[in-house]
């Protein structure tokens, strides 16, 4: 039991009669990398939104670390150590890379309401922020405004910011989407490095990434779980092959 970090039961989200997520039971084991795959519109992002409370489920429950978080607020869930990234990269565009990461550090260590102090005191986070930027290969862009970074680098920055929170569990929504080969390899290597001591749930379309990285795979189609297991099991499942290839052809 204790090796389950995140568990959903009967998770359902309806948008005006249409079930984007339908009766999903998901169990993520602590310390694993778990992939959520499925064709476009399968409900993967909606699932993420439900888990991180950006959407309220129509029915079902979510337990994280043994706690029922079904009725929590998104900021609270993040504070409990369940932190997400976004499908469309989410960085603070007009802040520098360093400032982006510092915002995460500042949240964890407190003092964020100090309106009477100078922002100079935020420099205490510079060392840690630079180390994190180095870790994702952005060491040379610390003082660059995020808006001018390439797409791949923005994603890396988003991951660095997420890592700064030292989350128990990270939810990554298509971390390699739209990246060049070199960038994909970098992100994969990065995920390998940062997985220690963490659990990762990721949405990923690139199956070779999934194969190389993930311990467990859940396949979602039309809001339902179609199959679950390791890569070999799932990829041998004829239903999965049809669902995947069927939509990919269309």
């Amino acid at each position, binding site marked *: 039991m204790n090796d389950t970090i995140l568990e959903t039961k009967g998770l359902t989200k309806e948008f005006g009669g249409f079930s984007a997520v339908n009766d999903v039971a998901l169990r993520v084991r602590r310390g694993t990398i778990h992939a959520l795959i499925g064709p476009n519109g399968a409900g993967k992002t909606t699932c993420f939104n439900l888990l*991180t409370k*950006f959407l309220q489920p129509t029915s079902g429950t979510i337990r994280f670390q043994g706690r029922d978080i079904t009725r929590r*607020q*998104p*900021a*609270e869930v*993040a*504070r409990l150590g369940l*932190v*997400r990234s*976004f499908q469309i990269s*989410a*960085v*603070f*565009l*007009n*802040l520098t890379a360093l*400032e982006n990461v*510092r*915002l*995460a550090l*500042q*949240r*964890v260590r407190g*003092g*964020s*309401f*100090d*309106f*009477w*102090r*100078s*922002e*100079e*005191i*935020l420099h205490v986070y510079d060392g840690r922020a630079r180390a994190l930027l180095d870790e994702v290969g952005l060491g040379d862009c610390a003082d660059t405004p995020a808006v001018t970074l390439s797409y791949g680098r923005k994603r890396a920055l988003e991951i660095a*910011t997420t890592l700064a*929170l030292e989350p128990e569990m990270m939810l990554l929504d298509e971390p390699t989407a739209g990246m060049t080969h070199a960038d994909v390899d970098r992100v994969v290597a990065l995920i390998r490095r940062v997985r220690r001591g963490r659990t990762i749930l990721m949405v990923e379309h690139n199956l070779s990434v999934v194969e190389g990285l993930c311990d467990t795979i859940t396949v979602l189609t039309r809001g339902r779980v179609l199959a679950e297991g390791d890569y070999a099991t799932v990829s041998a499942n004829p239903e999965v092959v049809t669902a995947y290839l069927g939509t990919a052809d269309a």
Partner: protein
Amino acid sequence: MLGFTRAQAIGFVVMVAVIIIAPGVLYPVFLMKVLCFALFACAFNLLIGYVGLLSFGHAAYFGMGCYVAAWTAKNWGLSVELSILLGGLTGAGLGMVFGWLAIRRSGIYFAMITLALAQMVYFFCIQAPFTGGEDGIQQVPRPPLFGAVSLQSDMAMYWLVAGVFLLGFLLIHRIVHSPFGQVLKAIRENETRATSLGYRTDDYKWVAFVLSTFLAGIAGGTKALVFGIATLTDVHWTMHGEVVLMSLVGGLGTVFGPVVGALVLTAMENYLAEFGSWVTVTQGVIFVLCVVAFRRGLIGELGAALKLNL
């Protein structure tokens, strides 16, 4: 210096110099009015310019600040600094409640709720006995500063008002450039991401709202003691309209824009007063010009032309 950029530091020095020299050239009473409105506009700009919250009801905090400062100075004989402070605290107290009610909503709904609440304050002021109804609170004395320094002469009062304005201006600057201000910036850039990092964004907006209403109350209280009067015009929504116009003319989200806007509009009102309703027409024209041609306002356009953050 104080987290100002070079250009802003120069701007600040110029502003202080103007404040020191101006009473030699212009009427101190006129200048005090400008400074009170400048502080009010800066407080409004803190919300719209740095948090992206469009309040429609700032007249309520300004006006209640006026009433409370006037009433306490007159009936309790409080010294000037205490009356002004109470005016500010009244603004902040109202802001705490109203902000709490409004901040759960965003965009136009936020604006409408702040307007509705401000209208309630206005009707309260018409009915409540302590405001003196249509007459307002008149002949408010100017008690000595700290109970010792006489403020009977307009010049003495002027230095006090200048001090209050500068303190308020610097406080806003500090807020914007504080750890808290950094979070506000993040919220304005990408609120969803800020939430996903664990920031309860509503709390930050609320604190910013309360700070803004505190300064609006301070501005109102100061104005009441300058003119020795607090009336219904101070809480009326048109008062809010003026401060919006000032911020817009000067430049939303700029450091000096609201100050320049307050100067321009107050000057227009004073020097065009003899033309009666032409003031309103001119204001309308300026408003349209700003929206159509000078979106960034005077200081905003100047800053853009010089590629500086003013």
